[in-house]
């Protein structure tokens, strides 16, 4: 019995295929163009090595901001529930999930089943999200995937104000113009993002243990900075970006079983 979890995020789309509880396929692709078409391509591509087609799936659940535009999904579940479910399944002792996605970051409190007790999200502002890091990487002419490691090299991080992505970008550009070391600027950016995320997540009273998910969890500099501010070691799953799709696939499995 094959089921699929599809997570259409603002920057990346993710897919997980489960067969009898086991992950047999996964894929991360940049979300581009029309979501309906993009999600079709995504599912075709992830199923191709398995010799399957969308019609062979017993169930599919869609999540992410594009969840309502996935034509082959029987159900939509919010990414808040999906990240909770995915982490709860892998790490049943985790009580707080911090998800750093492309356009939003969230704090999610879960019980031992991965079911959501409470949550908080950033409001309509990209500061403190993946997109913010992307903008800064561009402004600094540094690869996004190198940002985290570079942040760890600094001994005297710059003070960066990040109430607004656009203003932060011009601040970064002026610091570069003044000849400040890039690593210090990058470290400052990471500190500011971590500060913002932690103060938001504190609104739901953080309980240990804490897991970090989403594309932002792949950034080692950000993870270390979050640990400092949280005063606690965090759990980063092997594929943090795929947790939402994994949770969606678990919901799809429920659907298939209840049929």
């Amino acid at each position, binding site marked *: 019995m094959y089921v699929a979890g599809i997570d259409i995020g603002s920057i990346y789309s993710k897919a997980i295929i489960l067969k009898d509880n086991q992950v047999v396929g996964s894929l991360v692709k940049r979300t581009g163009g029309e979501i309906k078409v993009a999600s079709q391509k995504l599912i075709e591509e992830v199923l191709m090595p398995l010799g399957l087609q969308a019609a062979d799936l017993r169930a599919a659940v869609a999540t992410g901001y594009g969840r309502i535009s996935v034509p082959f999904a029987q159900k939509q*579940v*919010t990414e*808040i*529930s999906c990240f909770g479910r995915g982490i709860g399944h892998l790490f049943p002792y985790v009580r707080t999930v911090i998800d750093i996605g492309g356009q939003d970051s969230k704090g999610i409190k879960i019980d031992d089943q991965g079911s*959501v007790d*409470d949550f908080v999200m950033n409001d*309509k502002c990209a500061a403190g999200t993946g997109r913010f890091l992307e903008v800064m990487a561009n402004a600094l002419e540094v690869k996004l995937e190198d940002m985290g490691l570079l942040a760890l090299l600094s001994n005297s991080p710059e003070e960066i104000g990040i109430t607004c992505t656009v203003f932060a970008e011009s601040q970064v550009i002026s610091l570069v113009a003044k000849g400040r070391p890039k690593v210090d600027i990058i470290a400052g950016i990471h500190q500011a993002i971590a500060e913002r995320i932690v103060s938001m997540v504190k609104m739901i009273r953080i309980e240990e243990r804490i897991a970090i998910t989403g594309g932002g969890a792949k950034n080692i500099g950000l993870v270390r900075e979050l640990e400092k501010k949280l005063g606690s070691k965090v759990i980063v799953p092997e594929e943090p970006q795929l947790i939402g799709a994994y949770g969606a696939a678990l919901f799809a499995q429920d659907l298939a079983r209840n049929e």
Partner: protein
Amino acid sequence: MSAPFKTAGLLKNLMAKYYAKGEENRKSGIPVAWVTAVFPVEIIYAMDIFPYYPENFGALGAARKVADKLSEYAERRGYFNDLCGYARCGIGDAYATDHPVGNILPPDLLVCCNTQCGSLPKWFEAAGRYYNAPYFLLDSPLIEDQVSPLGKNYFIDQLWEMVDFLERTTGKKFEMERLVEVLKLASEATQLWNDCLDTAALKPAPFGFFDACFHMAPIVTWRGTQTAVDYYMALKEELDERVAKGITAIPNERFKIYFDHIPVWPRLRWFSDLFAANDALVVASQYTHSWAHKFDVSRPMESLAEVYTEQFVNRGFEYRIKLKMDFMKRYKCDGFVLFSNRSCKPNSFGLYDKRQVITERTGKPGVVFEADMSDQRFFSEGQIQIRLEAFFERLRKDQ
């Protein structure tokens, strides 16, 4: 939203007549006074002055999805888009060259009470200068729980000063007997309104908050008149009839929700559909209950002072939490939604903390979302939908 009410047709007719009456009245020598929504309008009615509610004009512009267009006219004059959306609609219309919801009615005089907020007095001051009309501010002291004797006397003195101001500027005479009659009518209407709102506590309910947002216009504008009493009698009758026939507000009511506070007017339908699709009915809000008070007609001025200073927006943090929790208990709510309204700072203040405290004290889930009650430019559908859907998923977990 519920299937159309018979009363809705009546309301549309009455509102159209009311808006037409302003200019007619002025011609026949009845002055037009701008008033604020939570204001002792009973005195205005008692003196046969025509009360006009510029906030209603703002809500109308918002509901017709043109608040942003009107606001742009105000913004060009330097009014920042962070100000109250109703004020931006009203100020914008004064400067506008096109009037998508008709012209705002110019005032002969302006009377304002700051029990709601500090933005209204500034808007009315600016309007007073623009229309060259006299302006009176009724200053309500901020209170924590109950108004102090000193605060009450301060307010009562101002009520008399206002009577004096009204007599001088309009030439009309104030008579206490007439005020008592008006207060009786106001109490009757507010009691009926309260009864209508209370039908939302039935499960399943015939009436919810989104319906109340539509049917509240008469209690705001005509409390103190027979028209309001007649209207709510008709509405109550219709609701009783719906209960008898088993007509409900939404098809499958599973959850009852408390909503704070004003609706997002341009998206009223969107919200009501989203809640209904999740079998959730919004059953109460402190907003629609703002006009569900009672007067003691044996002490007219004191009673007016108590009712209008003790409005919830004028009170402390703890009181406001308690008020929401009381509503949740009275209407048997399963959860609550708090709207952080960019337009309304006094009500949005501390909402995230309030959410936390209410959940801790009641064990009920709640969610905060941010938007503007009138201006669509601040509405981010995806962001709001995900919060509400996650909230509904959380509600289902409890059942």
